[in-house]
């Protein structure tokens, strides 16, 4: 891979990927049963997205 093959991701895509990967990792590390893992991953992903978008909107008035 070189500089010309760099990934071009939007803010939302980057946040989604980040939240998904970290949620999966946390789910696997902290839970043993598959159902518990799935619940944890979904819950963690939703919270990541909710808080991320929430902070984004909270910063919006100060962006200009």
């Amino acid at each position, binding site marked *: *891979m*070189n*500089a*010309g*093959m*760099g*990934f*071009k*991701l939007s*803010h939302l895509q*980057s946040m989604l*990927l*980040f939240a998904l*990967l*970290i949620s*999966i*990792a946390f789910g*696997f*590390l902290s839970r*043993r049963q598959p159902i518990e893992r799935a619940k944890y991953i979904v819950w963690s992903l939703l919270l990541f997205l909710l808080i991320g978008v929430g902070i984004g909107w909270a910063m919006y008035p100060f962006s200009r």
Partner: protein
Amino acid sequence: MADETTAPVAPQHDSTRDTTTPGALSPDYRHETMAYVIGVAGWLVPGLGHALLKMWGRAAMCFLTVGTLVILGAGMRGNVFSSRGNDAFDSLGYLADLGTGTFYLLARSLETGGADVSHAGGDYGTRFLATAGMLNLLSALHAYEAARGRKA
């Protein structure tokens, strides 16, 4: 006092250790050493610590998530910090990147064009790389604790 004189006296040393041959390592010492080896292995190669403990799902998850974060971070031209940092933040970033173990070398080899944090993608890439390092350290610590039998 009467209680002290009649109470059974605890042995001064563990009698089971007398049966071990001189120079042989105790099982506790070997167990602890093995836990350290597993922790270091998990840091050097993401997922290897869990693989040595036969926790295949966690091993695969660790390898894939850390690997994906490193490839994405380097592909987005994030900053792969070196030891020659200019300030404390560069040094902290270097420590975080080193957390990926051998994948740090992979990130450096992938990012031949150098970092470009003039756009949001590069900034995200820097965070992806640092997060990969922290995640791998957390995973290695988890493998170490599991090897010691504290949790799994």
